[in-house]
Structure formats: C-alpha cells, structure tokens
C-alpha cells in the first residue's frame, strides 16, 4: 500500500520487480517441482472430498445388506463392506476428518510453538529453563505412546484425538522455534534495531517471528502428514474416532477381518492415506526449496 502511494506520488509506476517469495503470493506452488506434485495429488482429493454431498453416492452410514462385500464397480468405486456400506463414500468422509485433524494439529502446534518458543529463545534464563524443562519431559515419550495414553484419559472422539496429537507435537515446535530464535538473535539486524532502542515486543514481532515462518511452515506441513497418520493409527486401534462415524483408520480396521475376501475395504483407504501423506511431504519440500535462499539463486 505504502510504497505504491510513494510511487504514485512521484509519478512513477509501482516497481515491477516483485519480492521473490512472500507468503501471500503462493506463486511457488506452480513454479516449484515438488510443490507441483503435491498440488497434482492434493487438489483432486480435496475437490472430490468437498463435492461428495453433490455426487450420486450412497450416504456413508447407509447400509445395504444385499450388497455386502461387493467388489469395486462403477456404482461403488471402492467396493462395499460387510454391511453393504459404500467404502468410497466412507473414505471421502474419513478424509474430511483426517484433513481436519491434520490442519488443526498443525495450527495448534504453530501457535503454541511460536509463542512459547519465541519467549524461550528470546528471554533465555529462567523463562527458557522452565519452558525447556517441560518440553524435555514431553519429548521423552514416543509421540504415539503419549497420544494413546492421553486418549485413554480423555476418551475417544475427534477433539480428544486432536488434543492428544497436539500435545505430542507442540514440544517439537517449541524446540524448533527456540533454536531459530537463538540463531536470529545474534544477527546484525537485531543489533541494528536495538541501536534505535526498539522495544522487545517490536524485535520479536517485526524481526524475529517473520524470519522464522518459513522453516516453521515446512515443519507444519510434515506435522500435518504425521498427525493424519497418528489419527489413523489411533482409530485403527479403536482409540480415535469411534464407529459408526467413518475415519480412514477405522475403515481399515473394519476391512482387516475381510482382507482375504475383500481386499478393497482396507487397501484403497490405506492408499489414500499414503497419497495424502506423500503429497504433504512434497509440499513441505516445495516450501523449503522456495524459501531457501541458496536454492533460490
């Protein structure tokens, strides 16, 4: 806004050369090879998932005993399960849950990671010791185990699953953010701002956090993929999203018994999880490449 006003005021066209990568400009998604692959996989999945209500599909919970364990066909692209429910429509519904869990966990981790990690790295001393102490305790547990334990306490369902997975991921983000802040803190431009007596809040919000967003986004997209996998694992173990509400994990669990007669029930939703996870990893590689100054030049 401002610079355009300047340019207009002096009768110059706004400068043509744009900043290479700014977060609002997602140009890298079609320039970058990795990101392109991510989009090629993710976009169709998203499109079908959100168009599901408008597609001529059997409702996810509707059963039809006469069509039990049907092989994939045009009518039922992923076949049907024991109760004659349409696996494709259940899978789409499961994807919605998975993506919701993945996104929410990533956002929660980002928010807590930025807040606590920045405080820890920037203030150091007691603040750092307290935050890091708690973080280290959480990091001592394997994340799946921690999630299982928490779900056991909180009970099953979408919200407890999100809480459980976040609690395992937030400490990693705090660590990451702290290390980023520590390396930024000694950069000359922080000194430059300190020489004009910039307050600490200014340093953190204007100089430090904007420069940590790139690596955090890379981590966030991997975390989203990870959260989707953990949610599926928890649901598979009967601890996550409970039937009859479909989730990719419990669909696979349902199909496990019939693996020999009806391979499609478990295998096809499994393949979907794989595709989503891979595309999110591609996306994170894409973001990293787009934001890495060495790869840029």
């Amino acid at each position: 806004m401002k610079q355009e006003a300047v340019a207009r005021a002096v009768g110059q066209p706004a400068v043509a050369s744009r900043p290479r990568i700014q977060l609002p400009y997602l140009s890298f998604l079609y320039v970058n090879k990795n990101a392109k692959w991510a989009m090629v996989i993710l976009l169709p999945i998203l499109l079908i998932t959100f168009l599901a209500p408008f597609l001529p599909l059997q409702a996810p919970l509707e059963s039809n005993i006469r069509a039990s364990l049907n092989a994939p066909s045009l009518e039922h692209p992923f076949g049907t399960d024991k109760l004659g429910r349409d696996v494709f429509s259940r899978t789409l519904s499961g994807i919605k849950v998975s993506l919701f869990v993945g996104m929410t966990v990533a956002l929660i981790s980002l928010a807590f990671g930025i807040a606590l990690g920045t405080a820890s790295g920037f203030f150091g001393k007691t603040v750092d010791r307290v935050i890091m102490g708690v973080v280290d305790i959480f990091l001592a547990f394997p994340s799946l185990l921690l999630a299982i334990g928490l779900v056991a306490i909180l009970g099953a369902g979408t919200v407890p699953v999100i809480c459980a997975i976040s609690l395992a991921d937030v400490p990693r983000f705090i660590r990451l953010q702290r290390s980023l802040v520590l390396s930024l803190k000694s950069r000359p431009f922080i000194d430059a701002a300190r020489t004009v007596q910039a307050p600490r809040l200014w340093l953190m919000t204007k100089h430090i956090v904007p420069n940590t967003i790139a690596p955090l986004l890379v981590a966030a997209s991997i975390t989203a993929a990870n959260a989707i996998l953990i949610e599926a694992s928890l649901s598979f173990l009967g601890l996550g999203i409970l039937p009859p509400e479909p989730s990719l994990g419990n669909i696979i669990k349902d199909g496990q018994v019939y693996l020999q007669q009806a391979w499609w029930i478990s295998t096809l939703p499994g393949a979907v999880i794989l595709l989503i996870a891979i595309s999110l990893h591609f996306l994170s590689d894409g973001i990293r490449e787009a934001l890495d100054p060495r790869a840029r030049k």
Partner: protein
Amino acid sequence: MENGATAGTINRPAGKQASLTQPLLQVQDLHTHFFTESGTVKAVNGVSFELQRGERLAVVGESGSGKSAMAMSLIQLIAYPGKLVSGSIRLDGKELVGLGEPELNKLRGSAIGTVFQDPMSSLDPVMRVEDQMIQPIRMHLKLGQKEARKHAVDLLTRVGIPDADNRISAYPFEMSGGMRQRVMIAMALSCRPKLILADEPTTALDVTIQAQIVELLKTMTETTGSAMMFITHDLGLVARFAQKVAVMYAGKIVESGTVGEIFSSPKHPYTQSLLKTIPSVSGEKRRRLLQIQGLPPDMKLHITGCSYKERCPAASERCYTDAPELMPREGGQSAACWLKNGLMTEGYESITTLLSQGEKPEAKEGWNRIPLNGSVSEQPDSPGDDNVVLRITDLHKHFKKASLLPWKKGAEIRAVGGISLKLQRGETMGIVGESGCGKSTTARMLLGLDEPTSGRIEINGSIQIVFQDPYSSFNPKMKISDIIAEPLHVRKIGTKEERLRRVRELIKKVGLDLSYLSRYPSQLSGGQRQRVGVARALALDPSIVVADEPTSALDVSVRAQIINLLCDLKEEMGLSFVFISHDLSTVRYISDTIAVMYLGEIVEYGPAEEIFVHPAHPYTKALLAAVPVPDPMIEGERTIEQLRGELPSPANPPAGCAFSSRCPHVTAKCTERKPPLRGYLERREVACHAVS
C-alpha cells in the same frame, strides 16, 4: 579437442618474440557459465592468456568479475551449477579440458597447488594438520609414511611455522588464521607444483599478517621456481607482489601487461579509473575522491558492445555496438578498448576531468530539520559548551570466560582496557587496529549494545551506526522504506505521512532513486544497500555516526562512492563520525584525528595527517609499512620492516607494554612497566617508553 587446431595460433603479446620454450600455461577462449534457475551467468566469458614458468601473474577484478570462477576453471573445481562450457587450458602443452576426474585429481595437488581465500574453512577442522598434509604427499610423491612426514615438517619450517615437528600434530583450530594460511601454503607447495593458484590468500587476514604471507609467497615462488596466479582485488598487493597483471571486468580480461606498464601507463578506462579512485596511504591527499559511476553489469544479461560502456566517461557510439577485443599496445601490454590510450587520450590530466564529470552537480540543498513530534535531539545545541559531542572516560570492557571447573574462576578477557577519547562536533575520528584490538567492542559500547564494565560514555545528542555488512544488518523480510523508517517508527516520531516524507527525503539524500523504497534488501547491490544503511542511520538526525568498516564489504569501484557520500554528509550536516576500519588508506582520507588501538588500548592518538606522515609508536609504524601501496616503484624501493609473530591473546597479554612481544625495539623496561599514554609533540599522545 576442437581447439587443437587453434592452439598453434595463440596470440602472443605483440613485441615479444615467441620464445622457443613453451609457456607453462596457455588458456584459450575460456568460457565458464553458471546455469542458475533465474538465468545463465556468464562468469567467464572468453578469457585467453599465457603464463611463463616461474612467473607471478596477478588477476585483479571486483567480486563478480569472474576472476575466481576463472581460477577454479583451471583446475575444474567449479561450484554447482557452474560448468566449463568451452575453451582450452594447456599445462605444459597438455590439454586439461576434457580430462577425466581421476586424471584431474592427479594434477590438482601435484602439478597445480591451490591456496584458498579463507584458511578458517579450507582446512578440515576434525583432522590433524599432519593427516591432511601427509596423505597427498604420499600419494603424489610416492613416499613412505616417515619420509612424507619429514617432508611435511620441512615444508612447515620453510613457511615459517615455529616448532613444526610438534605443530604438525595440531588441529587447525589450535592455530591462528595466519598460521593456517601458512599451512595451506605448505600444502600447496608440498608436491612441488609447477603452478600455484592463490585465490585472495590474504583477504581474511590482518594487514601485518598479510604482509608476512605475501613476503612468504614471494620467496617461495622464487626459491621453488613455481609460477603463480594470484587473484586479488587489492591493487596495492599487486604492486608489491606481481610481475604481470591481468585486469578482469565482467568475465573478460580488459587489460594485461607487466606491473610497471599497468601502473605507470594504464590503457583501459577501467584500470585507469581504479588507479585514480583508491585513496592512498602516502602522497598528497585529494580533497574529494574521484569515483567511478554506476555498477558492474548484470552477468545474466547479454552484453552488446563493451561491458564497461555505461560507466566509462569516454564511451562513444561505437562502444555500444561493437565489443573491443584485447588488442596489443606498446610493450607487452594489451587492452580491450577502442581508444588507444583510454581516458588519457587527450593527455595525462584528461582522466581527472573526465572522472570528475561524474560528481553530483546538484545544488546542495540545505538539510532541513523537519520538526517532528517528539523531537529527537534530546539536548539543544548550547553554544557555551566546548562543542564536545562525545566524551569517553576510562572505558573498560572485560568478558568473563566460564571455567570448565565450576569452583575455579574463569579467565578474563580484557577486550577494551581503559580508553579515554573526546570527539568535537563535525570532527571525524578514525579508530584503526587489527582484528581483536577492541575497536568493534568500543563501537558496540558507544551504541549501547554492550554494557561497559566500567568507565563513562557521555553523548551530546544521539548516536547511530552504519554497519559493516549492510546485507546482514537489514531484516530480509522488510522493504527498504520500512528499514529506513524503523528508527522513527519505533520511537513513535511523526505520523505515517510525515515519516514517509522523511524517508523519501533521506533516500534522495544518499543519492538513490525513490523506486528503491519498495524493494527488498536482496534486490539491491552492495553499494546501494550501504547507501540505505547510511540513510537509516541519519533518520533520527544523530549528532554522531559510528561507521564500523562501512566499505570493507564493498567492491573497490564502489568504495569511493560511499566514502564521498559520507564526506558530503559530514560537511552538509555537521555530523561527527567515528570511523572504524582496518583499511588505513580510507581512514587517512576521511579522518581528522586517529586513534591506533592495540590489544584494547590506545597506543597512539593525534591528527590524522601527522600520524600518517610521522608515526611515532612502533606499532603504528609497522601497521603503515604493512599496507601495500598501489605503486610498484614505491613498493620496489620499500624495505618492509615486518612485524614478527602474531597478535597475542587478549586473555593473556604480555606483561608490561602489550606490544612488547612483537616490538622491534623492545627493551627490558618494556616487559616490566606498561608505558602510559603521554603527550607527544603538540597535539599527539603516544604510549611508548622509547618515544618522548
């Protein structure tokens, strides 16, 4: 291989008979390109030259001129995404282009030795020196473990490493920068190479150490008979060291000749301007530095015509259409310019007139101090005051190093050990000294970035800084307009519109176009960034500006522009400067007074001219002697009194006078009592027992 046919018809420099013996190195039409995502950078764009046996050739050029890429092309160690595209390199008549990796590996380290720029990063930090040295010796010279070690110790002794037999088992981090560079030189020499490539071997070192290393390289090539290609941007070093010079600009050699020819009668406008624009340590002092306008061309774009045309005051229409080839001139000299004598076509003095045309002709508009809410200058100018803007009294800064054992007291490093200084309004004080002398710590304390351990700093008005590396001192995610406005923004001075007005005024002040305001730091060149750094420092209308090595990260041809800018601002705004640098010639040019620091203390203080003409302290003398002068005549006559040894560690300074461990005139008194800073002549102060 297609070059085989042309190899017989290499242009020999005119006037020189093709000798019967073949030259050691023949490079013909070398092209090295870097294939980046945003375009092809033609770093080396048709370079041809020859190097005779035992000859020392200096390749001079700014960063981006392709000099390093050219050197690395010779041993074909080009960083990704670079590629040797075409050309021929013949070493002893043997074609190197097209050789396989195993054969090249045999050549590197045996026939061609290499000394890299940064001795800190070119040695493996987790390997002992002996392990790094002995392996290649055994491989290339086919010696046994024992003989190889003996050979290595021999070499280390020859390059001046004391107690080499023990030092050879040290790790690189146990050695200083100068020592490591000696090790690198020993390694380069270890397999008796015919050619040594030295890529800015002294740039990372202090002046006194640089003088030692250059002498070493000179004697080493003389005693071993190796030829050397020495890459540098420092014309002074060229004059001290080289026999032949090749000047590179935009990927091409624009001028070549012997040192004498290049310095006494340069033929290419670029060489001529460079020699005119560098401030010198000796000789008459110019009122204003001549400067080369503009910037080097973007190597990604196709260049039609001469690559120097935009910056050349004598460019004609022809320069925009046809690119001049390297054409022979008198003697062994050749230059790539349509004009026979470049800028000196109409006599020797015409160059000065031509270069001064570039000076900014605009009428100097007065610096109007815009009244902003919450004015910055805390103290109004009081005419009664004796005009002192900065007074430092007995300033100390000690860093405590934690000891490994918790109950033991850690070592204390006296970074600054009691300095007192005074700065008048409008005065510029230069602080010089080698790295580790405490000059940057002093600057940090002045700016309030570090708390002094003891002592007082009194500032009348406010103080701002211009950083050494403008790139790292800007937040890469902020626009230039926000960077300049930040000081005002942080202090909540003015409304948004007022700040914007101020920013526009500031950027014009430092000679940049308004369109730069909406760019990001990565889109600016080094010189432009430093201008922005200056604008930012001026935003709060300070009374003092600290400039911490403001030109050392810049290219030679841009330095003069920044120095002139600082001088102009000083005159216009009555600013006081604290100018910190190890570049003595720049300090001399810009400063009124000079403080020479050694190990956290001031050893000599006084008016700049007097100190440069008649230095009193032995350290000042050594420092001045170590700076190479860009004139081979002076350099040839000078006997350089080299400073022995290295800078002692500030954690463990010598007893008595801090300089006693390196001083050529040391007496028993010096090691017992520390000499105080005493008055000397009329306006000077010196800390030395021998000076009174």
